[in-house]
């Protein structure tokens, strides 16, 4: 299985180790991983803030780069960016040609955890991690892509890590893209509900599939000098403690 990595701008610039971990795990699961260096961004920030022309420009570029990379699947360590690809067709209105291309590409674009479990049929990647962990359902991954059971199955098979279900795991972390800085007080109020639940769960790490949620959650955890780590699913699955 040939996988083309859709790294996402957040992972590329802020947490490249998540990208490296994702590549390692995919290879361990038997995939050949390629990386097209022309990729930049899926355009989600523009789309979500209402700048559709800008989003369309980036979407076209994305489609052109990825549609004939010769890969069987495009895999991304981000539920929201994967969901954006699945929404590309909304940017093309009556343009049937572009809509078809967008839909064809979306059909083989997967979120990382869902890809491992649903496409590769793998739910144990031989990872090990010491200590209890919990999972935060990122909104787009959960509600747009239906990713819920897959990461939980993967986490339950991590040796040494006791999986604890977080109360209201599917409650939003409050990020919401530009919402986090347009309405920061509300964003943080929503976040603090999540932080309370995480602290009460007594875990060593909170894991999620979306770097944006992790940025929001981790930002508050470190500001609070918490002992809890926020980790990406790929990082945890690449771990060999």
């Amino acid at each position, binding site marked *: 299985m040939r996988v083309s990595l859709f*790294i996402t*701008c957040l*992972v*590329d*610039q*802020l*947490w*490249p*180790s998540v*990208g*490296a971990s994702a590549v390692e795990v995919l290879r361990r699961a038997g995939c050949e991983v390629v*990386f097209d*260096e*022309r*990729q*930049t*961004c899926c355009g989600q*920030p*523009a789309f*979500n*803030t*209402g*700048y*559709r*022309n*800008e*989003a369309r*420009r*980036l979407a076209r*570029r994305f489609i052109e780069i990825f549609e004939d990379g010769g890969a069987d699947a495009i895999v991304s360590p981000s539920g929201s960016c994967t969901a954006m690809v699945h929404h590309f067709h*909304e940017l093309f209105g009556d343009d049937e040609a572009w809509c078809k291309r967008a839909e064809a590409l979306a059909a083989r674009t997967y979120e990382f955890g869902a890809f491992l479990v649903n496409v590769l049929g793998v739910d144990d990647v031989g990872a090990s991690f010491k200590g209890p962990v919990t999972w935060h359902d990122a*909104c787009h991954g959960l*509600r*747009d892509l239906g990713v819920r059971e897959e990461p939980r199955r993967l986490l339950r098979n991590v040796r040494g890590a006791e999986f604890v279900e977080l109360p209201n795991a599917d*409650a*939003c972390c*409050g990020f*919401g*893209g*530009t*919402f*986090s*800085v*347009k*309405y*920061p*007080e*509300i*964003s*943080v*109020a*929503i976040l603090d*509900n999540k932080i309370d639940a995480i602290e009460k769960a007594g875990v060593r790490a909170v894991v999620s599939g979306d770097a944006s949620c992790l*940025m*929001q959650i*981790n*930002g*508050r955890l*470190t*500001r609070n000098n918490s002992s809890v780590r926020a980790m990406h699913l790929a990082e945890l699955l690449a771990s060999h403690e």
Partner: protein
Amino acid sequence: MQHPTSETFDRNAREALEDVQLRGALRNLATTFGERRKLAILTVEDWEGLRERARASKDETLAHLDKYLKAFAENAERAGAQIHWASDGAEACRVVLDLIRERGATRVVKSKSMATEEIHLNAALEAEGLAPVETDLGEWIIQLAHETPSHIVVPAIHKSKRQIAELFAEKVGVPPTDDVAVLTGAARRILRQSFAEAEVGISGVNFGVAETGTILILENEGNARLTTSLPRTHIAVMGIEKVIPRLEDLDMFLKLLPRSGTGQQLTAYQSLITGTKRRAEDEGPEELHIVLMDNGRSRMLAHPVTRQSLACIRCGACLNACPVYQQVGGHAYGSVYPGPIGAVITPQLSGLRTNAQLPYASSLCGACREVCPVKIDIPELLLHLRAEVTEGTAAGTADQRGPVKSRPLERLAFKLYARAWASPTLYLWGARVARVLQRLVVRDGRIGRVGGLMAKLAPPLAAWTEWRDAPPLAPRTFREQWREEHKG
């Protein structure tokens, strides 16, 4: 009394977040209604199928709204009701006022109706010297307090028992007490008197059945039953989108609405009113007037994307599920329709120009879409409205001319982002430059609170770091690492 408007949503929200009592009330609402809803939907076999069918029914009705409205009006008239058409809120208020005046009536009772809140009917009647009495307990409470409802279904949810007790003590002389039974007993006694004296009863309509001309009213308290049966004249104000095709369609809507809104399998009362009494000696009003109100709905209907917001059955589930509503409550939205559905329909009813913040008052989490009994895709509608804000088109909303105020700096930022990130070279060089610049703010491997000049130059960074650390850009991007590792 000055009510907060949606133009100051950001300030309203900040004030709401400081209100400890409000936040406690909202936390209760979210937990209680959320849990009850989850349990209630388990009592329906194939909940998802039910939602699909209800949405399909709404879509079909909206696609032929004129036909169904015509049938509703004809059948209602055949049963003895009188139909009035009001193109907007002002006309609807005038129709109601004229009906009251023509009958020489002065004593008016009301049951809960969001449509009448939408058009500020009470204010219009009070301006003409009338004193309509709200009889739904929550509506009566906010009427006494001179406030607007903060929730579509439970209008006084923002008030604590203590606040209500103090209100009753001040306004109607009930000795202060925390005992809910005593408070509701006092309300019942006082409102009973209003019912007994009332000459006109004004209600809303939950569903209007085209097949029979029947109006259905749902409630738990019994006040709507009294409002619509004791007075001589009953006036029902109905948004035109409330019509459904057949009596049997009520089965699915009655399964969906109470479970979604309050977690009840059914409300305590469902009143089906078809025209007027058949025989003079029967009990009930002499006259039934149904005011079919447009007030922007046919304009919303014309727009292919936002049309689905007319499927709303006003259950309130989206408010209960919304993380933003849960934190700031309804008054912050500055509209009688708050929360997710409010953020979508308020700009359409009252214009995007004065409600331009509302589509952005959301983290787009999608919880609303998940709980909506008729599967309205609220996040899609919010994104659509955001595009209208930035493009200044405002199509399908109440703005007749001129674009919404643009945000030049934000617009410029996104244009630059799209241009730069359409080029891998610019993208990479942008990262390199940013990595150098960030040395100004990175300490101990993270970006802490950014203030001073830096905050002025980069307001989003200041807004983020006020409460949260920001991660620094990594020393090398993933692609730079990959390139290194795959050289040669």
